[in-house]
């Protein structure tokens, strides 16, 4: 059984705003029966067509899909369309007190349905990523055939949720969750997005405040270094940061590994590349 928060359970057992709005201003549909989840979102605007006064949904899907839909309809009420478009899938998940990572695709589905509804209302091309094989036109290249997802959509989700493994991409979008044939391509997309971020980072002014530097070191260790160590059954812990000296202790397979010296060098390289070129890494027994 999933470890759902009380808020998820509450929204699943007593979902708000179930149903349809017959004279809706905007309707967004994503997903399909084959995919195992689908959401149809109805939005009603006020007389001036400015603010959302009502939202309802129909959902086919698991507990978190229903809870996410319910949360979304609550969140958009009273917002302008532009404000509604700002809602991220992470905010939907946060509203529910969090979702298991395996279920994050439910929150992404909510965000997608919202985008689709608003795009349709405005008469612009829907941000068609093809989710659910429902869209004929797709922007970008089809990456996951099983779930009908394009590179444009996947890159967006990778970037906005800072995903760094193919497994996470599957949890957030379902891509790769069936035949798995698209996983190599997903890995390429992750590398691409990370590369773009690195470039952006490199363009930033090189002078960092101490606080920002420490933050960046921690983020780099969490997002770039540790996942790579996990892949080999290892891990590390940040012990201390003193100026440009970063002390780490190796854990699991990395602890006592004869080549931990190389691992320390690897960590140092990453930090120099992504944070600042004067960093030195020390291995300590912590």
């Amino acid at each position, binding site marked *: 059984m999933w470890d759902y928060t009380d808020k998820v359970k509450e929204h699943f057992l007593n979902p708000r705003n179930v149903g349809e709005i017959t004279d809706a201003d905007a309707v967004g549909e994503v997903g399909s*029966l084959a995919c195992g989840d689908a959401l149809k979102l109805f939005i009603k605007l006020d007389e001036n067509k400015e603010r959302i006064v009502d939202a309802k949904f129909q*959902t086919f*899907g698991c507990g978190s899909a229903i809870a996410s839909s319910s949360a979304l309809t609550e969140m958009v009420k009273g917002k302008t369309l532009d404000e509604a478009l700002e809602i991220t899938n992470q905010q939907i998940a946060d509203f529910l007190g969090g979702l298991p990572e395996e279920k994050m695709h439910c929150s992404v589905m909510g965000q997608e349905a919202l985008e689709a509804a608003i795009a349709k209302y405005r008469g612009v091309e829907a941000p068609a990523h093809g989710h659910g094989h429902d869209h004929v036109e797709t922007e970008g290249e089809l990456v996951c055939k099983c779930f009908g997802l394009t590179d444009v959509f996947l890159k967006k989700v990778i970037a906005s949720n800072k995903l760094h493994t193919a497994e996470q991409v*599957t949890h957030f979008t379902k891509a790769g969750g069936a035949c798995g044939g698209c996983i190599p391509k997903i890995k390429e997309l992750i590398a691409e997005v990370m590369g773009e971020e690195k470039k952006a980072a490199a363009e930033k002014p090189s002078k960092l405040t101490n606080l920002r530097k420490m933050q960046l070191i921690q983020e780099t260790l969490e997002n770039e270094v540790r996942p790579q160590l996990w892949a080999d059954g290892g891990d590390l812990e940040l012990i201390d940061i003193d100026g440009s000296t970063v002390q780490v202790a190796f854990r699991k397979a990395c602890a006592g590994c004869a080549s931990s010296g190389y691992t320390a060098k690897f960590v140092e390289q990453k930090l120099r590349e992504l944070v600042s070129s004067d960093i030195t890494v020390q291995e300590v027994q912590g």
Partner: protein
Amino acid sequence: MREIYLDNNATTKVDERVFEEMRPYFCELYGNPSSMHFFGGQVQKKVDEARARVASLLGALPDEIVFTACGTESDNAAIRSALEVFPEKRHIITSRVEHPAVLTQCRNLTKRGYRVTELNVDGNGQLDLNELEKALDDDTAIVSLMYANNETGVIFPIEEAARIVKKKGAIFHTDAVQAVGKIQLNMAESAIDMLSISGHKLHAPKGVGVLYVRRGTPFRPFLVGGHQERGRRAGTENTASIIAMGKACQLAEQYMADEAGRVRELRDRLERELTALIPNTRINGGGTDRLPNTLSIAMEFVEGEGILLLLSDKGICASSGSACTSGSLEPSHVLRAMGVPFTCAHGSIRFSLSRFTTDDDIDAVIKELPPIISRLREMSPFGREYLVQK
């Protein structure tokens, strides 16, 4: 809230009588059966008794019983043994609907150069024996086919399959984890070479299993070390659980009539009433021979996890063939292999009964499930034309 447990194909309650039987073997009679002294000897006697009880349920000989840690170990040991016995043979036959204990292992073996044929099943989840016959060749080392399916309860024609396989000289193994204790087996008159059982599916605790190995079947142990289990499975015996397994098998022998009669009637009533009360349902495997305790019912336009959570809210424990409950994203491989349409596969629920299931339990499901389905269907964007008018 009273719990209504209808997930017995996942695991069963340990029968109190089983528990009483194993209890002294932890803190009082904790001897090692391999020891030479009287203290170990009395445990050895009890292990022998357990072996005889298991053998009796299977219509087998006591020396054909090897105790293992679980059904998965039994399955793994059987397949690996056959491959070692015939090192020159590189072909394995199994089916697409096996338990992962068999299927995952076979798929992994393809990476080591083995050829694996996965037999298809039809819309009822049933095997085609002609396909088996055609797949067999001189290179086939082992055929491993499950006796009864854990999700649908569909019973394969295992004896016929075994006879076909024996004519070709391959070893025949069956994963009988779901069948043993529910339907009558008789190894004395069977062509099966090896058969797996799991304790926790028949009211013994988790962590004990059995591999039946027919006398004369060449065998290579999976675990090596000491000489326990006549050299077929090293490692100090899990005595308390083995003793529990013996008692569970003895009780299963007594309850077989109950499974075939009372439990089947309860299942049939559940099936009848649910299909009458809920439109757009189908019974997975309904058109063929099934275990008396299993009901897999597919309901269109709803997703399984939602159903399970709402049932669970009413104290009812069942299981689903949907992907979302497992963290995988596609519906169960069994339902997909049967060609169950996606509209139904996501909304399949399995109820599995046991000797402890009562009329009241069944009444509760009949009362609670139909409104849950209408509620979820009202929420669903699909199949709205099928909604029941209230």
